[in-house]
């Protein structure tokens, strides 16, 4: 029995433990999962000096409210999150990307994400949680991962151990928004009418409420399939944009089905995944075509930018 733990007063809407996910299991139907916004995950663990694959608490929209019992512990919130800390009845406005030390009986209330979907609570200690296939990432659809594969529940405990030495580090960082989602044409691009091919890059699409860790459903100018609205089921990867018979795009995200039978019109480039995941329902986006070489260069720039942000940690 661990002496240091959080008690969950309010679990939040979709609060899970995540890390970088589990690879090489698609062939048995298990997706990679893992954090939706990788950059915010990397930054949080860097500031806390955790290992790169350290588990994190990911939440969507409304986060958890937790009370902490135990020895002083460093935590850090990343993303664009409104939150409060309660110390001996004193209310402190929380600041993202700045280490906070929690003491016995302190509370943290992760009230909401601002104009974004996912926020992260990183902890400067080991979390006493289970791993499945070397990852703690929770996949609620298949009940795989830590916490019996279920999202966090009210009143449960989160035990921590091996608390790290306390330190004071911070970063000035603001998350930028994205309006143009860059894509590479898909293997079934030619299944669509010339007009729809043009519309796909010309018209605006809006993010619908039917969006979760599995996929993002969009709405906009209907895309007309002139060949076949089904293909023989085949593998999917994160970022693939499928067009089912109703003509509205669905983008595959971290917990996507591993196989699908709808035509693939395009695939979102890797560098745009983080910002794509943060789009709230109602957001308007446009797809912009890039070629493979450009996508690879943009990805190198994305990695350089992440390293540049990290280098500014004080």
């Amino acid at each position: 029995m661990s002496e240091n733990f959080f008690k969950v007063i309010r679990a939040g809407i979709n609060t899970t433990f995540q890390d970088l996910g589990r690879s090489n299991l698609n062939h048995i139907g298990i997706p990679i999962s893992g954090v939706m916004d990788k950059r915010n995950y990397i930054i949080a663990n860097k500031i806390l000096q955790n290992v790169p694959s350290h588990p994190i608490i990911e939440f969507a929209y409304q986060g958890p409210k937790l009370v902490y019992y135990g020895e002083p512990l460093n935590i850090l919130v990343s993303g664009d999150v409104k939150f409060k800390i309660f110390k001996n009845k004193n209310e402190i406005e929380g600041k993202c990307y700045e280490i906070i030390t929690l003491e016995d009986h302190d509370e943290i209330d992760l009230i909401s994400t601002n104009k974004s979907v996912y926020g992260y609570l990183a902890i400067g200690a080991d979390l006493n949680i289970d791993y499945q296939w070397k990852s703690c990432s929770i996949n609620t659809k298949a009940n795989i991962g830590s916490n019996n594969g279920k999202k966090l529940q009210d009143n449960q405990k989160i035990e921590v151990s091996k608390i790290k030495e306390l330190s004071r580090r911070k970063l000035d960082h603001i998350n930028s928004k994205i309006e143009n989602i860059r894509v590479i044409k898909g293997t079934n691009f030619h299944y669509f009418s010339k007009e729809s091919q043009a519309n796909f890059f010309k018209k605006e699409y809006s993010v619908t409420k039917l969006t979760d860790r599995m996929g993002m459903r969009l709405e906009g100018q209907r895309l007309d399939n002139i060949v076949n609205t089904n293909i023989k089921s085949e593998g999917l990867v994160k970022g693939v944009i499928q067009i089912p018979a109703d003509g509205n795009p669905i983008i595959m995200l971290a917990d996507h089905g591993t196989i699908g039978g709808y035509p693939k019109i395009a695939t979102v480039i890797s560098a745009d995944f983080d910002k794509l995941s943060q789009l709230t329902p109602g957001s308007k986006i446009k797809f912009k075509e890039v070629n493979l070489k450009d996508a690879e260069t943009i990805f190198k720039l994305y990695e350089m930018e992440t390293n540049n942000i990290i280098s500014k940690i004080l």
Partner: protein
Amino acid sequence: MIKNISNLGDAAVYCDFGDEVNKEINSKVINYFQNLKDFKFEGITNLTPSYNKLIVSFDLSITNFEKTKKIIENLEIKKNHSISKKKIQIPICCEKEYALDLKKLERKLNKPTDEILETFFSKEYFCYMTGFIAGMPFLGDIDKNLHAKRLETPRVKVPKGSIGLTEQFCNIYTFESPGGWNIIGNTPLNVFNSLNEDNPNLINPGDTVSFFKINKEKYKNYNE
């Protein structure tokens, strides 16, 4: 053997083995998959075999399309790689409460339930692939007389254990999930076990599956 290699986005290689679905092409896909799996090259994040395609995903911070493509092209393929060839028997209950779409199928196929089930139970099925949801086997080929399209409006929730038919294939829903296949029954057998990390799937590509009928009473007592 691979007809065409292209990129799927910036972090995956799309290997196309042809358009048809048959055991021969599928065996080639599985053989390639096994060989690549054994090769274990750096940066590969997933190998996803299906009826006639193989997708090789990689971590773009470690490798890229050209390098991965070259490895696939230059891979020495050992023939007759030992693939799973188990024979598995699956009990199903086809009574009303589990056979959600049998009545619809009677109309679609213009055949009585007895004939549909007799035809279905008389064959063995080959597992082409597993996926969509964890452990779900895609089995074929079902008799020509039983080919039916997907439901016009897919169900939001197909119960766990449901056996579904569509076109030349049948499958088993290993979890409650959305889905549009025609449900003819339900198995009490657990087809996916995440606690068995080395071998979570009861049915793997290459295996042969046959179904047998059980009544409601047997179904209910099956796991006791």
